[in-house]
Every structure is written in structure tokens, then in C-alpha cells.
């Protein structure tokens, strides 16, 4: 088999299964779920039997002479694919029973596989255009998965696709400028390393690509669809896509932009820091008072993007390691938390914090999985979360960005406080007597991911060589990066202490746990801010739509309609003038109409004669 085709298997198998096999099973939700699981397993097996065994796991096929379909499966791609495979297998197991609870199971399963294929395509791609195609497939799948949540999800689905599509177009624009600046080079592996400070075009290309990739990862101002999707999408859809896969892909591409395509100037770094800090606070402040469990998790996942972007912006090895570890740890614990949220929602018949706190079923294993994930979320030792945060802080110190460090540090404190509030809500339900949990298909993904989150530090440490190759840095540098730095350790310790202190200080010991921080809603400044946020005043999508509609309205009424009126006036005037002549010709006999053509010919003849 052609090497390129072999390498394309992780992309092709799920997409073909989704398109060809599933339509035959559309009426049988259970069969859909089983075929989904088998497809994922088949993809994993095919990847291990096929492309991974290639002597040189890289292939390029020219397509139309336009660009190369370059795919690669070196260990760094395998490292990310491994994560994707793990998430997909667990997600498929979760779906074995949960599929019957999804309002549109067929739509869900087909596009779940398309998203899986698209994600593999993005990881395997060595060419920006191929990567973009994989990404847009992923986006369309995301849109369909939101719609699979049933009636009422349409506005959220539209928002998802419009924001994703708009960011893709920005990325295309950035890529075109990049291609121009890099003299026609679209191959990521070429390591063009264009200095963003070398020209305005290079800087513009960077900013546009950064925004496009950041949008995928859920960066401000493109993040507003995520909390809404968390509510609208079926739980496994959100857990596997916005909470994990889409973030992995977005930050992976951000990393490649910062590491492989551009050499960042100070201005470029500043842009990244600004977006990072805004992203952290634009998410974590509403998370404090949010009353829907899934939306709180969505806000946490958004704010984590800010931490990752900050790490990448340091342009130091340690900062980038921090960002990548943050990404992988975050994807793991967030997926675990989302599955837990799905289970709790099912037990409580609702996803509000009140409902979950007052539920009758304890769900011991689900809660255990959540708590395991929580250890990584609050970055306790020896989780990957700890290593990630430690590296991130080190990176900020090493690059002398103390001001940025302060904001990131404060953001981390708020994060810990919010996660502790969720833990308190869940544990409050412990008082009830029914100790039953949901079936094993629901529990297994939570527990496995919870353990993976807890063990993340060890897993990442075992893959140090991969990180070394990813960053092109010496593995000693990486080892040094993970050695305990006193300042950053104190800073990390401070996050735990202040985070916990914030939570306990502001907690109402006599009231329900969900009401923690709710006094903020009553405050004059923040309260008004929350009101405006709920009215979507700060929502870039809503604001953008209003602006676009205003422009469209002006253009339509003041230009387009005006032109139509002028055209109508001219035609009416012409008709009135020519009516007598026309009415004699307009008899309904075809031959008369042919006279028009002959008139034209006569005019030409006249011109010929005149010549």
C-alpha cells in the first residue's frame, strides 16, 4: 500500500465508517455505539500494525501540483495520537449505554467518528493546508454534535460553526500571508522560522494564525460558544471534543506556530500575553458565580487556555513544556470531570449546582474519579498539573515577565477556589443514603481518566524524550526544568494556600455549598458586570452579529435598494417612452422577438458599411 495511504488510515477509517457503515444502523442506537467502539479499536490496531511500522513514517504525495499531502507519524505525533486514542476509546465505552439518552444518536455517532478522523488528520498533517482541511472537518463535526443534543440546540450550533468558521478564515488569511512571506512554503516541517519582527506582513500573519488556532483552543474572544455548548451538547460529545480534543488540537497548532513557524518578537509575545490574561479572567470570574455545573467546567476549560497561551508566549523551553503539559493534563482531568458531571446530572436529573448538591444517589466511583481529577486540577504533587504549573511559572520567571506572572498566579488561585467549590458541592451529596452508582460503562472512563490525571506527572516524565524532540531541546534541559525551583515552588504552594483560603473564607458555612461566592452578584461593580455578561453584552459573537447586521442593513437600504430603485425608474421611464413601439412588436409571436436579434445584426452591418 502507498505510504501516504497507510499513514492516512487513522483519518480514513473513522471517516469511512461514519459515512458508509453507520447509515445502515441508523435505527439501532445500541448498534451504533458498538460500531463506534469497534471503529476506534480498529483505527488503533490499524495504526499500530500499519503506519507505525513504516521504516520512515513520513510520506508526501503531490496533489494537483498545488501542495503536498505530507503526513508523518513520528513519535511526537504518536504521543498526541495516543492521547486521542485513549479519549476516544473511553468515550466509546461511555457511549455504550449513554447513547440511548442522546436525542439524535445517529447524528451524534456519525459526526463523532468524523471528528475523530479529523483530529487524527490534524495531528498527522505536515502541511498547513492539509491541517486546515482536517480542522474544518472537525468543525463541521462539532456543529453536528451540538445539534445532536436535540431541539433548542440550533442557536448554539450556529454560534459554534460561525465562530469556528470565522476563525478559520482568519487562519487562512494568515496562512496566505505566511506563504507570501515564507516564499511559497506551507510545509510545517520546513521550519521556516519567520521572525515576527522582520516585517509588518510577518507580524500580521502571526497574529491571524494565532487568533485562528487560539479560537480552536477556546481563547478569548472566540470562547463564548463553549459554556453554551457544554449545556447543549450530550456529555460524551463535550467531554471528547471541546473539553479535550479541540483543545489538544488548538494548543498543538499554537505550539507549532510559536515553535516551528515563527520566531516571536517582543510585540508578538505581548499580544499573546494580553490574550492569555484576558482569557483567564474572562472565564474564571463568571465561573465563580455560575450555577450550572457543566458551565462551570466549561469556564475552567476556557481559563486553562489562557495559562497555556501564557506558557507558549514565554518562548522558553520550560514555559513551552509547561504549556504542553498543562494541555495534556488539563485534557485528561477535564474529560474525567465532564464524564463525572454527566453521571451526576443523570443522578440528579439536572445539571444545576443545587440539583447536584441535593441529589439522592451518592455515585461513589464517579465522585472518586472526580476527586482524582481534582488533584491534577488544583496541581497537587505528583500530578502532571503540578509539573505543568511549576514549569509555567518557571518560564515566566526565566523570561522576566513578572507582571504577567502576577496575573497568571492570581488566575490560578481563582481556579483552585472554583474547583474546590465544585468538590464541596459534590461531596455535600455524600450525606444521602443511596450508595449506588451508574453502570460500569459510565464509571470506567471517569476512573481511568482520574487515575491518568493523578499519574500525569509520571506519564509525562516517561515521555521526556518525546518532549525533547518536540521542543528540539536537550533532555537535560527538560530534566532541569522539572527540578524544583524554590521561587516557583513557593508560588505554586501559594496558589494552593490562597486558593483554599479564598474558598473557605468566602464560603457560607450555614448555607448550601453552591451559594459560595454568590454574594459577588450583589456587589455594585461585579454585580452589574455579571448582569451585562448575562445579557451577552461582552459576547464577541453577539456583538459581532449586531455590527454585521448594522453594516448589512446600511448597505442594503442605502446602496442595494437605492440601485434597484434607480434601475426601476430607468426601466419604467424607458418603457413609457418605448411602449408604443414595443407594443407593436410584443405580440406573442416568436418570430417578432427574433427581430430583436436581427436589429442587432443590422446595427453591426451598418457599422461594417460605415467602415
Amino acid at each position, binding site marked *: 500500500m502507498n505510504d501516504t495511504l497507510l499513514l492516512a488510515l487513522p483519518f480514513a477509517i473513522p471517516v469511512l465508517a461514519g459515512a458508509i457503515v453507520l447509515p445502515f444502523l441508523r435505527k439501532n442506537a445500541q448498534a451504533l455505539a458498538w460500531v463506534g467502539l469497534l471503529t476506534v479499536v480498529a483505527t488503533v490496531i490499524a495504526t499500530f500494525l500499519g503506519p507505525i511500522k513504516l521504516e520512515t513514517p513520513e510520506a508526501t504525495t503531490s496533489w*494537483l501540483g498545488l501542495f503536498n499531502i505530507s503526513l508523518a507519524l513520528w513519535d511526537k505525533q504518536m504521543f498526541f495520537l495516543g492521547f486521542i486514542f485513549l479519549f476516544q476509546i473511553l468515550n466509546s465505552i461511555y457511549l455504550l449505554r449513554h447513547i440511548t439518552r442522546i436525542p439524535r444518536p445517529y447524528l451524534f455517532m456519525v459526526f463523532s467518528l468524523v471528528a475523530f478522523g479529523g483530529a487524527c488528520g490534524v495531528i498527522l498533517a505536515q502541511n498547513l493546508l492539509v491541517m486546515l482541511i482536517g480542522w474544518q472537518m472537525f468543525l463541521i463535526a462539532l456543529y453536528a454534535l451540538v445539534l445532536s443534543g436535540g431541539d433548542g440546540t440550533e442557536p448554539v450550533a450556529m454560534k459554534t460553526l*460561525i465562530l469556528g*468558521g470565522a476563525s478559520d478564515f482568519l487562519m487562512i488569511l494568515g496562512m496566505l*500571508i505566511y506563504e507570501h512571506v515564507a516564499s511559497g512554503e506551507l510545509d510545517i516541517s520546513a521550519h521556516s522560522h519567520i521572525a515576527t519582527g522582520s516585517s509588518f506582513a510577518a507580524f500580521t500573519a502571526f497574529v491571524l494564525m494565532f487568533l485562528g488556532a487560539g479560537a480552536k483552543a477556546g481563547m478569548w474572544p472566540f470562547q463564548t460558544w463553549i459554556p453554551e455548548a457544554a449545556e447543549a451538547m450530550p456529555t460524551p460529545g463535550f467531554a471528547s471534543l471541546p473539553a479535550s480534543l479541540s483543545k489538544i488540537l488548538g494548543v498543538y497548532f499554537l505550539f507549532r506556530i510559536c515553535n516551528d513557524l515563527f520566531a516571536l518578537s517582543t510585540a508578538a509575545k505581548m499580544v499573546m500575553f494580553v490574550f492569555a490574561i484576558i482569557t483567564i479572567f474572562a472565564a474564571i470570574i463568571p465561573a465563580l458565580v455560575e450555577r450550572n455545573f457543566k458551565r462551570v467546567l466549561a469556564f475552567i476549560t476556557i481559563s486553562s487556555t489562557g495559562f497555556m497561551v501564557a506558557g507558549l508566549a514565554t518562548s522558553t523551553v520550560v514555559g513551552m513544556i509547561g504549556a504542553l503539559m498543562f494541555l495534556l493534563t488539563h485534557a485528561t482531568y477535564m474529560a474525567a470531570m465532564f464524564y463525572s458531571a454527566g453521571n451526576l446530572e443523570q443522578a440528579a436529573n439536572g445539571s444545576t449546582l443545587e440539583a447536584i448538591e441535593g441529589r439522592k444517589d451518592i455515585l461513589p466511583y464517579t465522585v472518586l474519579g472526580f476527586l482524582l481529577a481534582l488533584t491534577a486540577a488544583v496541581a497537587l504533587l505528583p500530578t502532571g498539573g503540578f509539573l505543568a504549573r511549576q514549569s509555567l511559572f518557571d518560564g515566566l520567571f526565566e523570561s522576566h515577565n513578572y507582571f504577567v506572572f502576577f496575573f497568571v498566579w492570581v488566575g490560578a488561585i481563582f481556579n483552585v477556589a472554583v474547583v474546590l467549590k465544585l468538590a464541596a458541592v459534590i461531596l455535600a451529596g455524600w450525606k444521602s443514603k443511596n450508595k449506588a452508582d451508574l453502570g460500569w460503562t459510565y464509571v470506567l472512563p471517569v476512573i481511568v481518566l482520574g487515575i491518568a490525571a493523578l499519574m500525569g506527572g509520571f506519564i509525562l516524565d516517561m515521555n521526556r524524550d518525546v518532549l525533547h524532540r518536540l521542543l528540539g531541546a536537550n533532555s537535560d534541559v527538560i530534566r532541569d526544568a522539572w527540578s524544583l525551583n524554590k521561587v516557583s515552588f513557593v508560588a505554586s504552594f501559594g496558589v494552593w494556600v490562597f486558593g483554599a483560603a479564598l474558598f473557605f473564607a468566602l464560603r457560607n458555612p450555614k448555607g448550601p455549598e453552591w451559594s459560595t461566592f454568590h454574594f459577588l452578584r450583589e456587589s455594585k461593580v461585579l454585580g452589574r458586570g455579571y448582569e451585562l455578561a448575562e445579557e451577552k453584552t461582552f459576547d464577541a459573537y453577539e456583538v459581532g452579529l449586531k455590527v454585521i*447586521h448594522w453594516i448589512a442593513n446600511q448597505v442594503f437600504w442605502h446602496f*442595494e435598494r437605492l*440601485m434597484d430603485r434607480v434601475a426601476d425608474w430607468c426601466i419604467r421611464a424607458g418603457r413609457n417612452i418605448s411602449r408604443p413601439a414595443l407594443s407593436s412588436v410584443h405580440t406573442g409571436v416568436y418570430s417578432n422577438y427574433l427581430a430583436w*436579434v436581427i436589429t*442587432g445584426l443590422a446595427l453591426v452591418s451598418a457599422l461594417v*458599411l460605415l467602415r
Partner: protein
Amino acid sequence: MDYLSHVMWIIAIPLLGSLLIPVLGWIGGKKYTGWLAVALIATAHILTWGLIHQGLTGEPVSDPTFITFMDSWKGCAIHFGLNIDALAVFMSFTASLIATLIAIYSLSYIEHEEHEPEYYFIVTLFVGAMMGLVFSTSLIFIYLFWEISALACWRLIGYFREPEYIWKADKAFLLTFAGAVLMLLGFGLVFAQYGSFDLVGPDSLAGKPIGAVALALIMAGIFSKSATVPLHTWLPDAGVAPSTITSLLHAAILVKIGLYGFARMFLNGMVIPQSYWVWILGFAMASAFISACAALMETNIKRLLAYSTVSQIGYTFLGLAAVSKWGYIGAILYIMAHGLAKGGLFLCAGIIEHGTHTKDMTKMGGLIKKMPITAIVYVTCALSIAGLPPLAGFFAKDFVITGLFEGHHPLVGTMAILTAILTLLYMLKSFHVIFLGQSRGEAHHEGSPVMVGVVVVLAVLTLAAGLGLQFPWNLAHKANEQREALVPKTIQISTQP
């Protein structure tokens, strides 16, 4: 049979064969007129397959004096010449394919309407005029076929014969006719300057710079025919015609005639001085943007799709006016991609209108439950127009934008991307309003098997043209090579007014 005779059949079968349709109607075979029309148009399409090998591999075949009407009279000659190159093969193949599918759809759609033979007669004549125009080498015959198509268009837009519809048909005819008369004057000026109407041949106009006045006059004709701002307003009004007709106008023939005429006359013929290109780019960009804004404001499904056509035609003009390899290839591919997708969308609109008895989108909603296949086709075609992969529209649009950057028009390229975002917005909005959410009207039903079958074929072709881009790409690439050989870029960019 040589290629030139082959092409004569492609033109003659629909053009002359159309005359048989009213005859068949008069002798009592009214119900067979549709089948005859389908047979004539499909035969023309099948014959275009025989040209593909030549289009892909050979040099252009042309005979500017295939039929001589007037030879050496006062130093002038009028010939009907034929030219077979990759561009002509591409256009004839695409237009006849879409027209064939529309004719098949009409069998079910139009069967209960009055004046069926007349409908099929004019549709077939319309296709014949398109085929004639595509292969003509002489400006005079381009004009002749141009006007036949205008007459056909006028009659078809006013098909339902209500006073309002006739007014809109008159509007379309008068606007395009006025443009065509100006274009004819432009041809006259060109003839006065160079003494030839031929675009190929030893004394042809190829590579000769055109003057500003002649260019402006000819462009008026092209813009009016291709419904480019500010001469576009007839196209949204033409939505009063049956959906098959609007589909034919938007997807297969009418507006594409303007684009083809521009590509034939100015990218494979006369040379536009460099400083004038910016004006053409400006008009194209304004057309793409203004009509995208209008589409966003529309609630009438056919008017929305019509504004979308104006916008996408502007896009195609941008590709052509970029005067770059990717721009040209992108524009040609976009003619096909837009044709397939817009054909599908209008025919879906026909099914929706049949099922709901309204064009007002605000009275629809939730149709996906009653019309699932139509819904899937609609969203597939809409996403292709919006430029999402792996559909055909993505590649074509991407090439056009790349061409704009390649042609050193970054600002226009940026505007084109912003317009693409608007396109995504209004296309998605229309899908949501029509097919998703709560039903806001009476009970609906899916279209007839023939109608649904045709739209499914169009959606599949939209997908296939993206996944199997190789075939259209090869033709478009060859067309670009032939263009560059005929009118080298050095001439195009160095010619000054």
C-alpha cells in the same frame, strides 16, 4: 468525425432540436415534450464528453471561418468560427450537465403547469444558445447567442404571466438588453480599431489592447448579463420564475455567460491595460460584498439565493480579474462549484416551495423532519458555497483568494475573506431558519422521487468535485496554460492605456 463537426452537433442538437418541441406539442404529444427536451439536452451533454480528451491533452482546435456568411464585402468578412479549447470544453461540459439535471427535475416540477411545450422549447433553446456562445470565435456570434439567451430568459422569467411577473421579466430583459446594446457598440469600436471580430485566427484580436471606451461599453454588457453590481437588480427579481428556471439562470447558463464572455474576450483575447484592472476588481469586490449584505437581510429564500449568486459571481470575477494563475484556475473551478451547489440550492428551494407554498423563510422552520433529504442536500450545497472542505467550493474559493494574493491584491483578498465569513453566516442562517427549530407552517412533504433524486445527484457531485478535484482541476489548469500561451502575462501586465 472531426472535432469541429462534433461541436456543431453539440450546438445544433439543442438549438435546432428545440424547434421540434412546439411541433410535438401541437400534434398532441404535449406530455412527451419534456422527455424530448431532456433527450436533446442530454445528447448535447454526452457529446461534450467526446471533447474532454482533446481539452485535456491537445492544443486548441479552431477554425474561424467554419461557415462564411460574408466574405470580402467592402473589405469585411463575417464568419461563424468555432474554437475548442480547455475553457470551452469545461464550460460546455459543466453547463450542459447542470442543464440536463434541471431538465430531468422539470419533468416532475413543471408537469402540472400550463404551456409545458413552450417551457421546454425555450429551455432547450437556452441551452443551445449557451453552447453556441461557448464555442464561437466571433464577437458577432457571441452577441447573437447572447441575445437569444436574453430572449429566452425574458420569456422564462415571465412564465407565470401575472402582471407583476411580466414586469420583472421585462426588467431583466431590458437591463440585459441595454447592456448588450452597449456591448455591441463596444464591439463596433473594437472593429473600427482593428478591423476584426475574431478572437482567434491570423488577424484576430488576441493580444491587442482595448481602449477605455470600448472596454467600458463591453463591460456594461458583461456586468448586466452576469448580474454584477450595479446592474444586478434584475436577478433577485427573477426569482418569480419557476425554481427550475431560476436554477438554470443562476447555476447553469445565464449569469455564467457574462463570466465566460469576460474570460473569453479579455483573458483569452483582447488585452485590458493594467491600470483598468483595478476598476474591474473594485466592481467585483463591491458586488461580492454588497450582495452578501443584502442576502443577510433577505427573508425570501429565492431572493436570498439570488443575492448569494450575485455575491459569488463577484467572487468569480475577482479570480478572473486577479490575472494570476491561481485566480484564473480558481475562477473556472468556482464556475463549476457554484453551478453545482447553487443548482442544488435552487432546486431544493423548488421542493420547499412545493411543500410549503411559500418562499418566506420566516413561515418555515423544522422542515428537516418532513424533508430530511432536501435538508441534507441544502446544507451540503450551502456549505460548499460558504467554502468549507472537502466540498468543491472550498478549493475554488481558496484558489481565488490565493490568486488575489498572488496577483498582489492583499486588501481585496482580505475583503474577500470577510465576505466569505458573511457567506457562511447567511447560508447557515437560511438553513437554520428553514430546516431547524420549530415548525411554523402547515404540514409539509418531501419532493417527488425525481426531484429529490436530482438534488441528491447535485449534492453528490458537489462532494465528488471536491474529493475528486483532479478531473476539473486538469481542465482548468490546461485552460490556464492555453491562456498564458495565447496572451502572455508580460503583455497583460505591461500594457498601458
